[in-house]
C-alpha cells in the first residue's frame, strides 16, 4: 500500500487531533544529550552519535549475550533517536506546531525463519536485558556466545550527507517558508478560498549492532512540505494538494521548488472545475511520467517482497526467471538516489543498500530480500530490510521503485489511443499480494479521444491484476521521471518512506472505475 498524504500516521494524527502529536523545538535534540552524558571510555569507533545516550560496546555485548541465551541463530539490536517538528499554517498564520521525540531500542532474535522481538524506551542495562529476554524466548536451546569484539561497517555511502542539521535551524528560519507559500497561493487565483501548509523536519539516527560483531550508525534526515488548496467557483468547491519530500536540509527549499509547489497545486485544483466524470470499464490507460510509479509499487513491488514469496503466498512465488513483460520493460528498486525520500545508505539490518533489478528485459529476476528471506533462498540480502521504528522487526520493503526508459515517445503513445484516459496525479494505492489485484486512485487526468488529450477527469480509481497488467504494458517512453512527492508505504502496520517513478507508459487495457457507463 502506498499513499501520499505526506506524513506518517503518527504525524498525520497529530494534526487536528488533540491527544497524539508530533513536532519539536529547534534545540530539543540537546535535551536528552545533556541529560544522559555517560560517554567516555568503553565507547568504540562504531558508536558515535549514540554515545551520548550511554550506548557502549559493553552494553551491546551484554544485550546480545542475553538475546542469544536460549540459542537463537542470530540477534541484532537497533537503537533509534528521532526528533520531528511539524509546523502548520491555516487561515493565514502558522498557528500551531507539533514536536515529537522518540528514543528507544529493539532487540531481535532469529531462529531459522522464526523471530522473537522485544523493545523498550528504557536504555539502561536492565531495560535492555528485559527486552532481550522477551526476544530470546523464540528459541529453546543452550546459549550461544555474544561477539567479544565489534567492527564498524566502514565505507558507508553518503547519499544524504548532513550539511546543516535540522536541530541547528531555528523556527524563525522555517516559518517564512510557510508564509511565502500561503501568500503566493492566495495571490495565484481569485478562486482560492482556503490554504493549508505544513512543514515537517526530522532528524533521525539509528545504530544497528548484531551477533556477527557488526556495528553501523546512520544519520537519516527527512523533510516534507505540503500544500492544500480549496477553491470555489459558481458555488462549487474543489480541493487538491501537492507536496515535496527529501532526505535533505533547509537548502532543499529553493525558490524554484516553492514556486513549483504553488503552481502545481493551484493548477491541479482549478482544472477540477472543468473535469467531467470518468468513464467506467476496460480501456487503454496512459500513465504520465513521474508519480505514476505507483503502478509499479502496487502491481509488482509488494508481490516481489521476498517474505511473501518465502511463505508461498505471492502471485510472483513461481515466476522468477520467467518472461512476464515485453522485453523493453526493466524495473528497478534501489536506495542509491542522492537525497531521495526512498534513499538509504544501509537498511535497518545493517546491509548496505544498492540497486536491485526486479525485471530485466521483461524477465523477473530478483526478489527484495531481508536477512531472513536471503538465508531461506541462499542469496545475499539486497538491503531491503526496513522497519518503521525500534518498535518493529524489519521485513523486506521497497526503497525507490521505478521503470527504466523505453523505446517510445510520449506524443506517439498518446496519439496511439483512440479512446482512453491519461493519468497525471495520484493519491493512494493498494494491492492483494496473493490474488494480485491492485488499485490506484487518480486525482487528475484527461480523456484521450482520437489520439488527443481532451476533457479533464478527476477522482477515479483504477483496478487491475499485477501480472496481467505488466503483460499489457505495450509502450514505454524515454522520459523517466522520479516523483518528488512524499510517498509513504504501509505494510503489516508499518509505514516507511519510499520514492517511485515511471516514464510515460501505455497499458493496453485496464478497468477504469468511473461513474458513467462507457459511451
Amino acid at each position, binding site marked *: 500500500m502506498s499513499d501520499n498524504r505526506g506524513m506518517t500516521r503518527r504525524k498525520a494524527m*497529530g494534526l*487536528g*487531533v*488533540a491527544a*497524539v*502529536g508530533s513536532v*519539536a*523545538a*529547534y534545540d*530539543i535534540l540537546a*535535551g536528552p544529550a545533556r541529560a*544522559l552524558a555517560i560517554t567516555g571510555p568503553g565507547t568504540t569507533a562504531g558508536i558515535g552519535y549514540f554515545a551520548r545516550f550511554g550506548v557502549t560496546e559493553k552494553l551491546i555485548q551484554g544485550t546480545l549475550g542475553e538475546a542469544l541465551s536460549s540459542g537463537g541463530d542470530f540477534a541484532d539490536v537497533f537503537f533509534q533517536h528521532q526528533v520531528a517538528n511539524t*509546523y502548520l499554517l491555516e*487561515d493565514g498564520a502558522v*498557528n*500551531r*506546531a507539533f*514536536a515529537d*521525540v522518540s528514543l*528507544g531500542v529493539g532487540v531481535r532474535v532469529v531462529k531459522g*525463519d*522464526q523471530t*522473537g*522481538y*522485544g523493545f*523498550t*524506551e528504557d536504555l539502561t542495562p536492565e531495560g535492555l536485558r528485559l*527486552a532481550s529476554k*522477551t526476544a530470546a*524466548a523464540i528459541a529453546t536451546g543452550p546459549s550461544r556466545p555474544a561477539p567479544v569484539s565489534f567492527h564498524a561497517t566502514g565505507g558507508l555511502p553518503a547519499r544524504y550527507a548532513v550539511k546543516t542539521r535540522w536541530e541547528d535551524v531555528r523556527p524563525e528560519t522555517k*516559518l517564512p517558508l510557510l508564509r511565502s507559500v500561503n501568500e503566493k497561493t492566495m495571490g495565484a487565483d481569485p478562486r482560492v478560498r482556503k490554504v493549508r501548509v505544513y512543514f515537517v523536519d526530522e532528524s533521525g539516527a539509528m545504530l544497528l549492532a548484531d551477533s556477527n560483531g557488526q556495528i553501523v550508525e546512520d544519520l537519516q534526515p527527512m523533510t516534507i512540505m505540503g500544500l492544500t488548496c480549496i477553491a470555489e467557483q459558481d458555488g462549487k*468547491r*474543489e480541493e487538491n494538494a501537492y507536496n515535496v519530500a527529501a532526505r535533505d536540509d533547509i537548502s532543499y527549499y529553493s525558490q524554484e521548488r516553492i514556486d513549483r509547489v504553488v503552481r502545481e497545486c493551484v493548477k491541479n485544483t482549478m482544472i477540477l472545475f472543468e473535469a467531467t466524470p*470518468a468513464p*467506467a*470499464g476496460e480501456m487503454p490507460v496512459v500513465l504520465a511520467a513521474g508519480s505514476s510509479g505507483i503502478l509499479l509499487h502496487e502491481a509488482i513491488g509488494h508481490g516481489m517482497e521476498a517474505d511473501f514469496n518465502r*511463505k*508461498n*503466498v505471492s502471485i510472483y512465488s513461481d515466476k522468477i526467471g520467467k518472461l512476464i513483460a515485453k522485453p523493453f520493460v526493466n524495473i528497478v528498486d534501489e536506495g542509491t538516489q542522492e537525497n531521495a525520500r526512498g534513499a538509504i545508505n544501509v537498511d535497518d539490518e545493517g546491509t548496505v543498500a544498492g540497486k536491485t533489478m526486479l525485471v530485466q528485459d521483461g524477465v523477473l529476476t530478483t526478489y527484495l530480500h531481508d536477512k531472513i528471506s536471503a538465508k531461506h533462498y541462499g542469496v545475499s540480502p539486497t538491503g531491503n530490510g526496513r522497519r518503521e521504528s525500534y518498535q518493529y522487526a524489519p521485513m523486506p520493503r521497497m526503497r525507490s521503485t521505478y521503470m527504466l526508459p523505453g523505446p517510445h515517445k510520449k506524443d506517439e503513445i498518446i496519439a496511439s489511443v483512440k479512446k482512453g484516459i491519461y493519468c497525471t496525479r495520484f*493519491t493512494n494505492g*493498494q494491492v*492483494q499480494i*496473493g*490474488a*494480485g*489485484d*491492485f*488499485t490506484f486512485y487518480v486525482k487528475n487526468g484527461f480523456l484521450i479521444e482520437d489520439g488527443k488529450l481532451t476533457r479533464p477527469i*478527476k*477522482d477515479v*480509481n483504477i*483496478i487491475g*491484476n499485477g501480472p496481467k497488467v505488466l503483460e499489457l504494458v505495450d509502450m514505454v517512453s524515454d522520459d523517466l521521471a522520479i516523483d518528488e512527492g512524499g510517498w509513504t508505504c504501509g505494510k503489516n502496520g508499518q509505514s516507511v518512506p519510499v520514492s517511485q517513478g515511471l516514464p510515460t507508459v501505455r497499458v493496453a487495457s485496464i*478497468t477504469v*472505475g*468511473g*461513474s*458513467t*457507463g*462507457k459511451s
Partner: protein
Amino acid sequence: MSTNQTDIREIARAAMKSALAKGAKESAATVGRTRNVSLEWRDGKIEKIGEATTRRLTLQLYVDGRYSQVSSSDLRPEALDTFIADSITMTRVLAEDPFRALPEPALYEGRPSVDLQLDDPAYPTVTPEQRRKAAQQMEEAARAVKGASAILSVSTGFDDTRTESFHVASNGFEGSRVDTVFFVSASVSVKDADGRRPEDSSFGGSRFLGEVPATAVVGREAAERAISRLGARKPPSAVMTLVIDNRAAGRLMGALAGPLSGASLQQKRSFLEGKLGQPIGSPLLDVVDDPLIPKAFGSRLFDVEGLAAKKRPVFEKGVLRSYYIDTYYGKKLKMAPTSGGVSNLAWTLGTRPQAAILKDVGEGILVTGFLGGNSNGTTGDYSFGVQGFRIRGGERAEPVGEMNVAGNMLELLKKLTAVGDDPWPYSAMRTPTLVFEGVQFAGV
C-alpha cells in the same frame, strides 16, 4: 502492572506543572502506557513473538496566546525538564491564535458514572501457552474445512493489549482509563487454477479474555472465505444493486467521518457543510453516536479533550443531526463543541438477516471487501475497488473481483433501501449489512 497507575498520574501532573512554571498560561498532559503481546503462527509453528511496554507523554501548551502540542517517549525527569522548556521557547515564535483554549470546564461536568466494562482483571493471567494453543487451533480449524486441499498457507495470530492513560488539564480536569483488548485472527491463502493465490481472513476481538471469538469459528471462516474466492472473475460494467457485508460496510462510514468534522467544515472542505437538519440520506439512515455501549471498542466516559461523553444522534431518519465539533473548531465556527471524534456508531437495525435480504434483492452484487480507492470529502465523489459475489435468484452466486464502484456519497446515501439485523461487533462503526440500489459498477 495495575499498581503502576499512580506512576503515570505523577508524570502527567508533574509535566503540566512544569509547563505552567516555565511560562505556559494553560496546559494539559496525557500519559499513556501500553503493554502489547503478540504471537504469529504460520503453517504448524510460531512465526514471531513480540512483547513490549511503551510509554509516551503528550503535552498541550498555551503560551502567550500561542499553541503547540509536543510528545516524547523519553520520560526521565531531567530530559523532560529540558524538553518542556525548549517546547515553550518554540511556541513563543508562532502566530497568536485567539481561538485556542482548553475546553470550557462546564463541558467536563456530567461524566457518566457507569461501568463500561473495558478492563479485564484476568489480563495478566494469559500465558504464552494459551496464545500458542489458540493460534494452533485456528490453523487446525482452517485445514479441516471442505476444499482444504487448495490451501497454500495458514497464518494465525493472538494479540493482547492493556492500555492505561491519564489526562490532566490546568483548568480542572483529571481522568484516567484502563482498557484491555484480546484479538484473534486467521488468514488463509489458496491456489487458484490460473496461478492466482487469493487470500482472505477472519478476525475478531473482545475486551474480556473469556469472550474472545471461538478459535474454531475464526479458523473455519477464514478458510471458507478464501476458498470461496477461487475462480473469481471480473464482471461486466453495469448499474446494479449493491449489498455490502456488515464487516466491509465500515469503510463507507469512514468516508463520512472527515466531512462531519469541525476542521473540514471550517476549512470549507466538507460536502456536508450547511446540511444540518436537512435530509441527506434515506429514512433508513438512522445512527446514534453512543460512547456508552458496555465492552464496545469505541466506548469512553470522556473524549480526548476531556469532554464528558454523551449519546448524540448523527443521522435521524436520514436527517443530519450533528457534526463532530471539538473546542478549537467550535470556537472558529461559533458552534457548540460536541466531540471531535467518533465513539461507537449505534444503528437502528433492520429485522432481517443477510440471507433474507439477498432473497429480496434478487439480482446484484454482494461486496465482502474493499480494495483501495478513495473519496473526495469536499465534493462527496467516491471510487472504491471492491470484491464479492454476484447475487442471482436471491442467492449468493459466483465470486467476482477486480471491480469498482463509483458515484457521489449524497446520491448513495439516498439509495439506502435496506439495513440488516447484524451489526459487526469488532469495530466501533458497528455497521450492519447495507443495501443500495442503482450503483455504477465498473468491470470489463
